[in-house]
């Protein structure tokens, strides 16, 4: 069916025909449409990047705003409490402003102003054998400066690490529970918990009296405060190093004499990093890498040649003359040929990396970074060797290629500054360039300088 007359006629009619169209105009149109698509791709990348930066700033801003708000709330509550505490008939307990580490601090700057319990004590006096407690003795005042002393005096002890024990020795101790004073031999006020070193929370007196013992010192605004689980840090990293390009196929010169001379082999990049937490981070930035190499090698080609008039022997004739005996001798002659070629390579890239930092000690840490780089522009100019082994010149300009990037480094950090030695390996993902000696893998070694910026 397919071999019928129609088939032949159709095929012939089409193959013979050459259509007239404006090739140049069509080419321009194609280029324009391709560029438009590229721009659209670039816009998408920039848009995504911008969106993530805005998201990050929004998160940071919201956190700091909440923290400021909680500080302001605490401050206003403290002021209100100070005013209220002027009255002697109220029990005012303020949450201690712990300034040191939560494991070390002991309710410094505590503002337990007055504990007036006389009327409660009298209400309980009939039920307790220790009812003879002097009202005045129970009227305890504690100041921030000498919490421990006062506690000892009144046989109240304050345990660190979120636990307050009240009077374990004295039998007629009082436990503040549910707003009442009770006599108990094992009066321990403990399990307060939730005291944060960086929180300045104040309990309202009315509320605190109605709270159970376990919740007495629970900050009333605890739920509103969103604590940051990490210190959000920016970091700036400047890297500068040397390139070691690896060509996939350089066998063609392996058995020949060659000399390689590297001229400019350097790479530099500037990264902005965001520490997700103490160990993980995200990085992006801009990088420039280039090298310029000159190679030369010598090939030796053998060929048979016939050398004429080679003197084999000299014969002395009878007449006394000496005559040379000549012969055409075939000989193998070696012709050497020198090849010189060069390659220039320049890449402008935008890396997207995720990092993990393993802390060796306080100041030393090892970085592992991995991710991709978007090679915005790659220029390659140089010679390549074709299938016949001939050296040819070519210029390649490639855009929007992807490479995989791995980085390992050891860094020393002091305060905000750091310095480290870094090794990184970049592999072109698109390895379609089949010309020999064009590197698809580059190892870079160099120094990296870090500067950390606290987000708050």
């Amino acid at each position, binding site marked *: 069916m*397919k071999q019928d007359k129609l088939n032949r*006629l159709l095929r012939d009619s089409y193959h013979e025909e050459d*259509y007239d*169209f404006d090739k140049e105009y069509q*080419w321009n149109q194609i280029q324009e449409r391709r560029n438009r698509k590229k721009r659209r791709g670039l816009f998408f990348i920039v848009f995504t990047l911008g969106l993530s930066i805005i998201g990050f700033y929004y998160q940071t801003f919201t956190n700091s705003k909440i923290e400021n708000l909680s500080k302001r709330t605490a401050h206003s509550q403290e002021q209100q409490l100070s005013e209220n505490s002027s009255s002697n008939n109220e029990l005012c307990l303020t949450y201690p402003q712990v300034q040191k580490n939560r494991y070390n601090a002991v309710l410094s700057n505590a503002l337990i102003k007055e504990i007036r319990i006389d009327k409660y004590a009298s209400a309980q006096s009939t039920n307790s054998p220790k009812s003879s407690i002097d009202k005045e003795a129970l009227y305890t005042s504690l100041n921030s400066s000498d919490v421990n002393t006062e506690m000892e005096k009144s046989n109240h002890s304050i345990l660190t690490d979120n636990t307050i024990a009240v009077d374990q020795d004295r039998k007629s101790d009082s436990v503040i529970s549910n707003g009442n004073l009770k006599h108990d031999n094992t009066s321990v006020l403990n399990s307060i918990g939730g005291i944060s070193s960086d929180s300045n929370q104040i309990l309202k007196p009315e509320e605190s009296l109605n709270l159970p013992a376990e919740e007495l010192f629970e900050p009333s605004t605890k739920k509103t405060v969103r604590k940051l689980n990490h210190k959000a840090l920016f970091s700036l990293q400047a890297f500068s190093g040397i390139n070691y390009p690896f060509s996939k196929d350089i066998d063609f010169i392996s058995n020949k004499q060659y000399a390689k001379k590297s001229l400019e082999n350097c790479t530099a990049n500037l990264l902005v990093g965001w520490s997700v937490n103490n160990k993980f981070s995200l990085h992006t930035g801009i990088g420039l890498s280039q090298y310029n190499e000159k190679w030369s090698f010598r090939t030796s080609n053998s060929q048979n040649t016939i050398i004429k008039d080679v003197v084999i022997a000299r014969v002395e004739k009878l007449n006394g003359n000496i005559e040379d005996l000549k012969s055409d001798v075939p000989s193998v002659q070696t012709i050497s040929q020198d090849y010189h070629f060069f390659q220039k390579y320049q890449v402008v890239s935008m890396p997207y990396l995720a990092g993990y930092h393993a802390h060796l000690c306080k100041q030393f840490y090892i970085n592992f970074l991995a991710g991709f780089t978007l090679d915005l522009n790659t220029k*390659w100019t140089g010679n390549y060797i074709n299938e016949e082994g001939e050296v040819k010149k070519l*210029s390649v300009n490639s855009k929007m290629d992807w490479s995989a990037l791995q980085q390992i480094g050891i860094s020393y950090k002091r305060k905000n500054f750091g310095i480290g030695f870094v090794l990184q390996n970049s592999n072109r993902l698109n390895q379609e360039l089949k010309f020999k000696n064009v590197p698809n893998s580059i190892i870079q070694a160099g120094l990296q300088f870090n500067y950390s910026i606290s987000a708050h």
Partner: protein
Amino acid sequence: MNEVVQHMNSSVDLLSLINACIHRSESSEKKFYLMMSPRVMAICRRYSNSKFEAEDYFQECFILLFKKLSGYDPTKGEFIFWMNKLCVNAILQCKRKSLKFNFTEILDETLHDPDAVEFNDIEDINYSALIEKLPDGYRTILNLYYFEQYSHTEISKLLSIAETTSRSQLSRAKLFLKKLIVEKNETR
């Protein structure tokens, strides 16, 4: 056209050119374009009913070609066949997007037996001009069957139609073509 074919046969040069195009060497891309444009345009003209439509397809084909060039594997076959297939797919994709496919049922009472159509007595006719006049569905199936050498099963899969539809459309295309030829002869 023959020059182009000869040029293509020098596969080493073509491969080098393709490799350079993969890496966006503009001069190589232009060279590749100039080399391949007559063939691509011929394909586009076969599937279109006007010059403007063909030029649209032509641009689409080259955009797709440059995009997919890295996917060409020389070990799997000749570049020309791969390119033909890619161009046809690009054109069909365009047609699908613009909802060009309507497998019209143009019935002519005077032509009942498609197999009886004979083309022996027809010479000096510009078939490409006649094919341009065919409805889109007819033209596509005619092209796929005769030029791309697809079977009806393959055509049905490619166009998401029933195999019988493909067969009937081809028969009707031939009938329609015959009718056009007869008309052309009568006007002479």
